[in-house]
C-alpha cells in the first residue's frame, strides 16, 4: 500500500466494496448513525444531551451511558453471532454466503466486542450506578475521571465500529495471536484497529477500575465496615482489583505487538529472535483474570437478587466474601491452561491444571450458598429471580466442562474445538449475560422510577433459555468429533444438522431479544401507571433502595450511618428506615465538564490516525490529549452547591411518595 503524507495509508480503497455483504453492513452503520444524528437534530436534543449527559460527571448518568453503549454494541455483537450461525448452518462443502475473509472479521469483532465493549461496559455501568448508592456515598471518588473512563471506552468502541466502514477489522480473533497478526501475515489495517481500540479502552477501563477501588475503600458511609458492605460491592471491589492488575498484561501484549508492526521490532515475529510463545503468555496473564472480571460482578448481582426475592437473608455472607477473594487471587495463577498444548513439560501443565481446579471449590461453595439462601425462603419468581435460577443450573454445566478442559490430557483433545466455544458461552451467557439481565431488571425501576414489564420479560426469558441450550449444546457434541473453532466451512455431512440446530437456537435468542425490545417499549408506554417515586419496589435490603427512584443527583441528603450488614433491611426492622431531618445543608457536587468528551474524541482521532499512519494528525492529537489534561489541571471552581431549599424540595416530595405508599413503617 502506498502512503501519502497527508492521508497516510488512507484512500478510497478503504471503503468496503470488496464484498456486497460488508458494504451492506457498512451502509447500515453509516445510515443508522446519520439517522440517529438527524433524529437528535430534529428533536433539537443536542443541547439537552450535551448538558445533561455528555458533560455529566454524575456516576448515575455515566453508569447509564455505559449501559447504553453496551446495549448498542450488544446489537452489533449479536448480528455478528447470527451471521456466523447462519454461515455454519449452510457451510457444508464450502457453500455458505460469506467469504472466509469476511467470516474471520466477524468472529474477531464478535469476540472483541462482546468481551471488551459489551460485557465490560455493561458491568462497569451497573457498578458505577449501584456501588456508590449501596455504599451510602454521594458519588465515586473521582467523578471527572469517571467520565473520562467512559469516554475512552466509547472511543475504543467507536474505533471498532469505524473499522466496519473504513478499512477492515482484524481477522486474528479476540486473542490476536502472532505471528498470524504480524505485519508479514496480516498486512492490512485490521490488526491495527484491534490494537488501538484495546489500548484506548484499556486506559479507560484501568482508570475506571482504580476509581471503583478507591470509592469502595475510602467513600463508604460513616460507620460502614468492609465486612458490612453488600456483596455486590465486594465483587465490584475484587473485579476492579483484577482489572487494575490484569489489564497491564493486555497493554503489554498488544503494545509490543504494535511495536512489531509499526517499528519493525522482533517481539513476536517468526525470525529476528522473536518469541511467539511470550505473546500467549502475556495475553493470558490478562485473559484469564478477564473472564473473572466479568463473572464476579455477575455473582454479586445474583447475591443481591436471590435474597431479595427469597425474602430472606443471604446465606453465608462471610463465606461468600472469602470465596470471592479466593477466586480473585487464584485467577492469577492459572493462565497457562489456555495453552496446555503449546508443549510445556508435564510438571508445568499439571501444576496449572491443578491450580485451575482449585477455583472450582470456592465457586461451588458460592453455588451452594445461593441454594441455601433460597432454602426455607418465600420465593417470588419475578424476572430477576428467573434469570438467577436459570443461571445456577446452567452455569454448573459450564463449570463442569471448564474443569474437563483443566485436565491437560483432555484439553489436548478439546483445545480449539467447538467444545471450548460451548464451554465459554456456557459461562458467558448464563453467567455474565443472565447476571446482567437480572441486574438490569432489578435496578431498572431504581434508575427510571418504573419497572420493566413482567409478561414480556418472562417471554424473553423462555426464548433465551431455550435458545441458549439449542445454540450451544450441539457445539459440545461437535467438539467431541474434533470440529475446530473459527471454521468458515467443513466437509463432514453429519455435522450439518448440529449446526442447523445451533442456528435455530440463535433464532430463538433473537426472539428473546425482540421480546426485550418490546418489553422496553411497553414499559415506557405504561410508565404513567407504574411509576413509583418511593424507591423500594422489591423490598430491598441494601442502601440503594433507601433513596427515591430515580435518586437525586446527590444520592443521600444525609449520609446514612451504618453499623450492620443489610443496613436498609435492619433499619426497616427497627421501624426507622428513612431519616428526614428538619433542616438540610447545601450539598457540594462536581460541575459538569467537557474534559471527558474532549479526551475521548481526541483519543479516538489519535487511534484512527495511528491506524492509518497519518502521523501529523497522530502527533497533533497526542499533543491535544496532553494539552487538555494540563489545561484541566489549571481549572478552579470545579464544584457547585445544590442549595438547601432544592434539597429540601426533593426530599419532601420523596417523603410524600413514601408515606403515600404506607411503606414508611413496614
Amino acid at each position, binding site marked *: 500500500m502506498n502512503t501519502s503524507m497527508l492521508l497516510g495509508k488512507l484512500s478510497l480503497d478503504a471503503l468496503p466494496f470488496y464484498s456486497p455483504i460488508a458494504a451492506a453492513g457498512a451502509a447500515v452503520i453509516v445510515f443508522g448513525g446519520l439517522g440517529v444524528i438527524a433524529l437528535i437534530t430534529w428533536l433539537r436534543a443536542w443541547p439537552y444531551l450535551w448538558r445533561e449527559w455528555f458533560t455529566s460527571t454524575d456516576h448515575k448518568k455515566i453508569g447509564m451511558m455505559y449501559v447504553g453503549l453496551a446495549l448498542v454494541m450488544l446489537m452489533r455483537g449479536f448480528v455478528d453471532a447470527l451471521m456466523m450461525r447462519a454461515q455454519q448452518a449452510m457451510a457444508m462443502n464450502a457453500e455458505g454466503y460469506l467469504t472466509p475473509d469476511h467470516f474471520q472479521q466477524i468472529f474477531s469483532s464478535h469476540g472483541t466486542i462482546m468481551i471488551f465493549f459489551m460485557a465490560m461496559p455493561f458491568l462497569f455501568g451497573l457498578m458505577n450506578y449501584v456501588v456508590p448508592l449501596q455504599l451510602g456515598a454521594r458519588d465515586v471518588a473521582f467523578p471527572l475521571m469517571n467520565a473520562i473512563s467512559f469516554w475512552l471506552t466509547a472511543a475504543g468502541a467507536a474505533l471498532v465500529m469505524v473499522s466496519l466502514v473504513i478499512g477492515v477489522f482484524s481477522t486474528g480473533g479476540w486473542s490476536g495471536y502472532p505471528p498470524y497478526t504480524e505485519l508479514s501475515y496480516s498486512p492490512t489495517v485490521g490488526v491495527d484497529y484491534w490494537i488501538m481500540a484495546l489500548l484506548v479502552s484499556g486506559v479507560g477501563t484501568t482508570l475506571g477500575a482504580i476509581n471503583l477501588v478507591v470509592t469502595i475503600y475510602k467513600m463508604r458511609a460513616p460507620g*460502614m465496615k468492609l465486612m458490612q458492605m453488600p456483596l455486590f460491592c465486594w465483587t465490584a471491589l475484587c473485579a476492579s482489583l483484577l482489572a487494575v492488575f490484569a489489564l497491564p498484561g493486555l497493554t503489554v501484549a498488544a503494545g509490543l505487538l504494535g511495536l512489531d508492526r509499526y517499528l519493525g521490532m522482533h517481539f513476536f515475529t517468526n525470525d529476528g529472535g522473536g518469541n511467539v510463545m511470550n505473546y500467549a503468555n502475556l495475553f493470558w496473564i490478562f485473559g484469564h483474570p478477564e473472564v473473572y472480571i466479568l463473572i464476579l460482578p455477575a455473582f454479586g448481582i445474583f447475591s443481591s437478587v436471590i435474597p431479595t426475592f427469597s425474602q430472606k437473608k443471604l446465606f453465608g455472607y462471610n463465606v461468600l466474601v472469602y470465596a470471592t477473594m479466593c477466586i480473585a487471587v487464584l485467577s492469577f495463577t492459572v493462565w497457562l491452561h489456555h495453552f496446555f498444548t503449546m508443549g510445556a513439560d508435564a510438571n508445568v501443565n499439571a501444576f496449572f491444571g491443578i491450580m485451575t481446579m482449585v477455583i472450582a471449590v470456592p465457586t461451588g461453595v458460592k453455588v451452594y450458598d445461593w441454594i441455601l439462601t433460597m432454602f426455607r425462603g418465600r420465593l417470588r419468581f419475578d424476572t430477576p429471580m428467573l434469570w438467577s435460577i436459570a443461571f445456577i443450573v446452567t452455569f454448573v454445566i459450564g463449570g463442569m466442562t471448564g474443569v474437563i478442559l483443566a485436565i491437560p490430557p483432555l484439553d489436548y483433545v478439546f483445545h480449539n474445538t467447538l467444545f471450548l466455544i460451548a464451554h465459554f458461552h456456557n459461562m458467558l451467557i448464563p453467567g455474565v449475560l443472565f447476571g446482567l439481565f437480572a441486574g438490569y431488571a432489578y435496578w431498572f425501576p431504581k434508575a427510571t422510577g418504573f419497572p420493566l414489564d413482567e409478561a414480556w420479560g418472562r417471554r424473553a426469558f423462555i426464548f433465551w433459555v431455550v435458545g441458549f441450550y439449542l445454540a450451544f449444546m450441539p457445539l459440545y457434541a461437535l467438539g467431541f468429533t474434533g470440529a475446530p473453532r473459527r471454521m468458515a466451512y467443513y466437509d463432514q455431512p453429519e455435522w450439518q444438522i448440529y449446526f442447523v440446530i445451533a442456528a435455530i437456537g440463535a433464532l430463538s435468542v433473537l426472539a428473546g431479544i425482540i421480546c426485550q425490545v418490546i418489553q422496553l417499549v411497553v414499559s415506557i408506554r405504561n410508565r404513567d401507571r407504574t411509576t413509583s417515586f418511593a424507591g423500594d419496589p422489591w423490598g430491598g435490603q441494601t442502601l440503594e433502595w433507601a433513596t427515591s427512584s430515580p435518586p437525586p443527583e446527590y444520592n443521600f441528603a444525609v449520609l446514612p450511618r451504618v453499623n450492620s450488614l443489610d443496613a436498609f433491611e435492619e433499619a426497616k426492622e427497627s421501624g426507622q428506615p428513612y431519616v428526614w431531618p428538619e433542616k438540610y445543608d447545601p450539598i457540594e457536587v462536581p460541575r459538569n465538564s467537557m474534559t471527558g468528551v474532549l479526551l475521548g474524541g481526541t483519543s479516538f482521532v489519535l487511534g484512527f490516525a495511528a491506524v492509518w499512519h497519518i502521523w501529523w494528525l497522530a502527533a497533533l492529537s497526542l499533543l491535544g490529549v496532553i494539552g487538555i489534561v494540563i489545561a484541566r489541571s489549571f481549572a478552579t471552581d470545579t464544584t457547585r452547591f445544590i442549595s438547601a431549599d432544592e434539597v429540601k424540595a426533593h426530599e419532601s416530595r420523596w417523603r410524600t411518595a413514601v408515606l403515600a405508599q404506607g411503606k414508611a413503617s413496614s
Partner: protein
Amino acid sequence: MTDQPNQHPGINISHARPEDGRHTEVTVFGFWTFLMSDAIIFALLFATYATMVNRTAGGPTAAELFDITNAFIETIVLLASSFTFGMGAVALKEGRVGGVRLWLVVSLVLGLVFIGLELREFAGLAARGATAQASGFLSSFYVLLSTHGLHVLFGCLWIVVMLAQISVFGLNRQVRSRILRLGLFWHFLDLVWIVIFTVVYLPAVAT
C-alpha cells in the same frame, strides 16, 4: 471515615494540616493503585526482557554492548534527583515556596540529564548497529528502557506544570496534593531503575 490522623505515605504533609489529609488520603490512595498497575507493566517488561536476552539473532549480545560506567552515572543522577525531590518535599512542609521551586528545578535538571545520558547511550548503540530492529533481545532492551525513560520525561513535564501552578496558585491545597503525588511518581521511577540496572546492566557485564 477513619478517626486516626490521616498522615499519608509519600511526602506526609498532613500532620499539621488535617484538612489536607482527608482530601489527600483519597487521591493518594488512588495514585498508589495506579502506580501498582504501572508496576505490573514494568514487571511484565522485565519478564519479557529476561526471556529475550539470549535471542540475539546472531547480532550483538548484552555482554558486548553495555557500558557499566554510563549505567553507574545514570544511577547516581537518578538517585540524586530522588533525593533533591525529597528536599523539595521538606521545603513544602515548611511552606518555603522558594525552596520548593529551587528543589523542583534541581530535580528537573537532573531528570533531563538522565534522559540525555540515556539518549546518548541509545545513539551510541545504534551507531554500532544495535538498533531496536536488530533482534528480539534489543527490541526488549529498548522498550524496557524507553518505557522508563518516557516515564521520566513525563515526570519532567509534570514538574514544569507544577512550577507553573505554584506561580499561579501558590502552594494551595490542590498544588500541595499534586506535588505530593508527583513525588510518589518520581521515587517510584527510581525504584524501577534499581531493577533495571540489576537485571539489565550488571548481569550483562558480569558474564
